[in-house]
């Protein structure tokens, strides 16, 4: 391997790593706030790519059907649980939040589509359409078992992933898509060719993680999310509802996953089931950060991207094997290095 090839592989790896980093940060965000390891995150990214491809082709994306079905289910469940506890006064608000709001989003997409909107608008529409999915899934699937153990939540999360892959096939069909490149320009850095797409991926990763940190540091809601992650009881005593914090975490996480989906769609062909590997690799990155640290998760994700890039040069059939076997030493190191407090064991 020459230095030139190494440089190209490294840049390629960093770009892939940036995509993983966005998903990894979202995974950590949701895990710390809700204790759910949200495996379907990769699916959300893939669905965003499929949604954008449908919008590009001037078709109504399958996401519309998915959102409508999920919104109806979530609304019925919320109203039923309110009726059971006798809080009928809260019903209009629940219908507004779980049914009307998602339907408004669907309506906006449906109306805007008729005017053949330009690319940036289509991207915003795809993101808008994808964002309600995880909060609705949270209401349908995770809220009823919110107090369960992390392991049970993970098991349900894996099951949910398979359900979503099935729904993906139903709503998007089996065809793979590749969206049009966002930019065709290219630059050269020290003699190495860097595509505009790579630059765009890195910029987007930096901008969105930067925005997230600003949100955590400078807004009360951001601080409330961090507080919920640090100490749930303490947060409740401040009047912060864990369920609401969870919804915000899912919305933000979906945005991160959606952006990553849009960034990889022009580079890789995306199928309804392409999300799993993406989500799993981001998860590996998040584990490197101990599922608790955002910079750790981002670094881990970049590491996974770079290793994958070099591994695929050596042996493209074994690249996933190489990436996932590296998880074993990382897990060993983490379990030896971390001190388990009694509280953690109880959870």
């Amino acid at each position, binding site marked *: 391997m020459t230095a030139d090839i190494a440089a190209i592989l490294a840049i390629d790896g960093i770009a892939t790593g940036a995509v993983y980093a966005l998903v990894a940060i979202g995974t950590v965000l949701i895990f710390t706030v809700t204790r759910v390891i949200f495996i379907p995150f990769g699916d959300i990214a893939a669905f965003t790519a499929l949604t954008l491809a449908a919008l590009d082709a001037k078709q109504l994306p399958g996401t519309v059907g998915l959102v409508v079905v999920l919104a109806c289910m979530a609304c019925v469940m919320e109203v039923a649980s309110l009726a059971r*506890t*006798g*809080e009928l006064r809260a019903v209009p608000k629940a219908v507004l939040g779980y049914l009307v709001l998602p339907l408004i989003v669907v309506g906006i997409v449906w109306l805007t589509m008729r005017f053949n909107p330009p690319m940036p608008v289509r991207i915003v529409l795809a993101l808008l359409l994808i964002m309600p999915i995880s909060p609705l899934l949270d209401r349908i699937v995770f809220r009823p078992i919110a107090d369960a153990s992390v392991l049970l939540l993970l098991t349900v999360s894996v099951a949910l992933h398979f359900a979503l892959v099935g729904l993906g096939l139903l709503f998007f069909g089996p065809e793979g898509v590749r969206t049009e490149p966002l930019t065709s320009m290219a630059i050269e850095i020290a003699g190495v060719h860097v595509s505009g797409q790579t630059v765009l991926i890195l910029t987007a990763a930096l901008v969105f993680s930067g925005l997230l940190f600003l949100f955590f540091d400078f807004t*009360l809601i951001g*601080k*409330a999310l*961090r*507080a919920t992650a*640090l*100490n749930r*009881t*303490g*947060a*409740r*005593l*401040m*009047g*912060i*509802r864990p369920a609401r914090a969870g919804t915000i975490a899912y919305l933000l996480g979906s945005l991160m996953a959606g952006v990553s989906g849009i960034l990889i769609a022009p580079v890789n062909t995306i199928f309804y089931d392409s999300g799993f590997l993406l989500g799993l690799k981001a998860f590996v990155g998040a584990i490197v950060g101990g599922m608790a640290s955002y910079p750790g998760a981002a670094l881990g994700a970049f590491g996974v991207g770079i290793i994958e890039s070099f591994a695929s040069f050596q042996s493209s059939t074994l690249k996933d094997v190489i990436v996932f076997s590296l998880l074993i030493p990382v897990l060993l190191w983490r379990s030896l290095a971390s001190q388990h407090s009694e509280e953690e064991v109880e959870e």
Partner: protein
Amino acid sequence: MTQMFSIENVSVAYGKVEAVRNVSLSVEQGQIVTVIGPNGAGKTTLLMAAIGLLKSTGRMVFQGTDLARIDVEGRVERGLCLVPEKRELFADMSVADNLLLGTYSLRDRSTTRKSLDDVFDRFPRLKERSKQAAGTLSGGERQMLALGRALMAKPKLLVLDEPSLGLAPLIVREIFRTIASLRSLGVSVLLVEQNARAALETADFGYVLETGEIIQSGPAETLIHDPKLIAAYLGGH
């Protein structure tokens, strides 16, 4: 005097074990009421039920509202705030951020700046350490932060669980001085304490809780001179 908070025939059970049995008590507007009693009497359990973290039977009324269907967050929004025994601070966040989160339940946050200054006036130590992570504070400072954070929420009734636990005598005195000064702010206080003497000296009215039941109650001045109580809790001075 108007009734702020009342607990009527409240029982709390962990599985089959009843930790609190048929307890009734009330706090009037602007009053400091204390519940004293030995370790394991059910004091903390009673407070956890009052704030809604534990399920209970019986009736609880806060400012005329029945609390049965109101969750923890709803009680906090109505001005019923608990400073728990474990403080439950946000250890990795700064002192200032901890205090700011106290305002989360308020609809109107225009007075946040003033509340923050008030807390810093009350506890100058917190101002010095406002940028430090809460987890790096000493025990006394943590209690000050927990109290300050609760005051940021502009509580109508402040429920304090063992505020003096594990603190040095000098700091205990400071904490009790702060509690007594809450009267002038119109904040009512429900105070649970093992340090019975300090609690009765500060409070207007007292209840004695033993093995989950109220065995005695009366004005704090009367209780503090009760020979039986002196023998049991007040260490015969």
